[in-house]
């Protein structure tokens, strides 16, 4: 686990003092809400429908047991006993009082946590692969590079007042678990033929009302030039990104209007003219960061665990093992995924008691490490297979053993109208209804991988554009309706989905998903996921299934 040194600790302490002072000036009326807003946003404080919401950063999604316990404490002491893990690996507390926030932030520093740059028009918390350090196929540990970016982007004097928010994701695996191509900048680390590390630099992805899959502007940026190249991209964006219209201010609009080739030319020209050695990270610091993540004291274990195999005679464990445990790079270990999508639960929600229990389980069975995923689940990345049955029992005891990772009920959903002031429609009850429809785990498993993503409005916080099935809440004369899209993907095969047909009433959505799934089951070829079948057949069979009457016209 990475730990702060004295400099990191001083940075956060200075920030908290600054924010305490700003809150004081707001409460005394010296700062207007308009002046205060950008300042509070840069400290993760949103004003929602019912109260303030505090978004706490979880850099690259990596938590220790101690950090998880601190989050549990915040949930209990200052919120209503739970928190909400987000698609950007952060956690949100939805019921925080403005006057309490400086104390909450001071408390969080005791566990090396903060809320810096989790919102606002700045470079946001950098996200990464939740399997970092555990995935066999990764070419390097992406957390190292994410930490490099965390430091560079924190309080960047030039890039604190950007046209709009700016999100960066880093992955070092061919299998993309970060939605890199849906980010302002996606970085995919690879080795070239000479074995040198370099980044594929993808720019201009994003959701919202004009979704884009990012364009590759560099196939292989030498890794040591990461910071100077990011500086060049951000400088071009800061200078020339639109500021006249909130909805056209993201970098995706600049990239689309210039064309990716011209944007790349401008970024390259800026990069060529820059004093790169001044900006790039020296090797010594890279080595320090790498070392500061330490080594997990893995044990030498046989690849096959007798205890694990014996436990498979319990069908519940066998199902959990099939769906939630994946291979680890170290023999005898597994990566255990903990679903926060229990049937009928709010996707991403976790109670304080569950957080504490997970902290204990991670300490007992998983080297004290926990990760947050883009898909709003948690991961214990380093679990000896011998301990998986005991871990499973512990998860069952706190209601966290739902065996549905990547299955139909493992949905992403935004807070929607239950919390969000911008919403057109609720998202959570739709997710709950779909969960109920596919409550039978055997059926869910037979359906296979299916990614449903739900947003309560076109801002697309729930990433519906890149769902295999996307669900978008729309407002029709004051009533909540839902538009379905098919064929999107946020992974390495990224694509924007296509609208299926006219929007449906709230009570029709779960049935329509059921119909789509039945249509897929009827026509799929062996080994095809829902997405693969859709890509092979096109929308025809799916449209006919959901809108049978349309054919008669």
């Amino acid at each position, binding site marked *: 686990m990475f730990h702060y*040194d004295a*400099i*990191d600790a*001083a*940075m956060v302490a*200075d*920030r908290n*003092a*600054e924010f305490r002072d*700003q809150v004081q000036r707001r409460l005394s009326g010296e700062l207007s809400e308009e*002046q205060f807003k*950008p*300042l509070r946003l840069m400290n993760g404080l949103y004003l929602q429908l019912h109260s303030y919401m505090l978004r706490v950063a979880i850099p690259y999604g990596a938590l220790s047991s101690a950090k998880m316990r601190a989050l549990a404490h915040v949930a209990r002491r200052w919120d209503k006993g739970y928190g909400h893990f987000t698609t950007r690996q952060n956690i949100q507390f939805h019921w925080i009082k403005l006057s309490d926030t400086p104390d909450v932030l001071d408390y969080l520093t005791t566990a090396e946590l903060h809320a810096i740059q989790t919102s606002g*028009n700045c470079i946001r918390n950098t996200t990464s692969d939740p399997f970092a350090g555990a995935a066999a196929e990764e070419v390097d540990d992406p957390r190292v590079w994410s930490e490099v970016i965390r*430091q*560079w982007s*924190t*309080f*960047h*004097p*030039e*890039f*604190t*007042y*950007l046209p709009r928010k700016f999100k960066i994701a880093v992955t070092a695996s061919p299998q993309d678990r970060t939605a890199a191509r849906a980010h302002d900048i996606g970085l995919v680390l690879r080795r070239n033929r000479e074995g040198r590390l370099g980044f594929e630099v993808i720019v201009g992805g994003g959701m919202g009302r004009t979704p884009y899959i990012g364009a590759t502007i560099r196939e292989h940026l030498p890794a040591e030039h990461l*910071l100077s190249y990011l500086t060049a991209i951000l*400088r071009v964006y*800061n*200078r020339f990104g639109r*500021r006249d219209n909130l909805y056209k201010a993201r970098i995706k609009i600049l990239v689309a209007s210039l064309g990716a080739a011209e944007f790349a030319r401008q970024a390259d020209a800026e990069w060529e*003219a*820059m*004093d790169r050695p*001044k*900006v790039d*990270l*020296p090797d*010594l*610091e890279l080595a*320090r960061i790498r070392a500061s993540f330490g080594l997990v004291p893995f044990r030498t274990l046989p690849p096959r665990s007798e205890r694990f195999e014996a436990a498979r005679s319990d069908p519940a464990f066998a199902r959990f093992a099939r769906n939630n445990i994946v291979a680890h790079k170290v023999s005898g270990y597994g990566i255990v995924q903990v679903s926060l999508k229990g049937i009928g639960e709010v996707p991403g929600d976790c109670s304080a008691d569950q957080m504490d229990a997970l902290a204990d389980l991670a300490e007992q069975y998983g080297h004290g490490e926990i990760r947050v995923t883009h898909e709003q689940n948690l991961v214990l990345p380093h679990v000896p297979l011998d301990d998986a049955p005991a871990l499973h029992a512990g998860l069952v005891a706190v209601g966290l053993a739902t065996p549905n990772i990547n299955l139909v009920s493992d949905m992403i959903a935004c807070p929607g109208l239950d919390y969000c002031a911008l919403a057109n429609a609720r998202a959570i009850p739709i997710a709950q209804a779909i969960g109920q429809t596919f409550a039978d785990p055997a059926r869910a498993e037979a359906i296979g991988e299916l990614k449903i993503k739900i947003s309560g409005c076109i801002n697309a916080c729930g990433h519906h554009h890149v769902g295999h099935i996307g669900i978008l809440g729309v407002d029709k004369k004051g009533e909540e309706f839902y538009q379905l899209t098919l064929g999107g993907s946020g992974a390495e095969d990224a694509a924007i989905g296509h609208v299926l047909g006219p929007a449906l009433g709230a009570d029709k959505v779960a049935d329509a998903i059921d119909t789509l799934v039945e249509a897929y089951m009827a026509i799929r070829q062996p080994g095809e996921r829902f997405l693969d079948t859709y890509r092979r057949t096109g929308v025809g069979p799916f449209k006919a299934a959901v809108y049978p009457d349309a054919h008669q016209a």
Partner: protein
Amino acid sequence: MLIRLENDHFHTVDDRFTAVGDDEALPDSDAVILSLARFEAEGTALLAAGRDVGVRVGPADRVEALVDVLPQLALVALDFPKYRDGRAYSTAVLLRDRYGFGGEVRAVGDVLVDQAWNMVRCGFDAFETTVGPNAWAAAARRYRHVYQASADNRAPAFAERATKARDPAARVG
């Protein structure tokens, strides 16, 4: 009020420059600040007449237009029409780091004390603000360390760490 940063010290100064609007008559006072557009029309003549000239650069203006005359300019004033408009930070960095401008870089417009550290780090050394120099200095020095290199040439955290690593006495603590 105009605050200047000189030798690590923030203090108020009298402003000897007169900001002249685009359709105002030029005053006789020696030192004037013109918009980029007006400077492009009248600047050469004024400089030739030996006057001190500053140019006000708006956020949408391209500072590249000034590169050739920069050595002759007394100051460049970068305008913040709204404090959320962050383009002037990049302009300031370019002026200092790319074009080596050694004159005054002044922040004008919606200048809030909470931005003092951003401005100082990006190379501003004069600030038109309603805040006093002590409050301004405190806000500018809020952070004891910095993570990245910028126009102020403060040592970033990685350089501080490297120094410490080289000095065995410092490493003990």
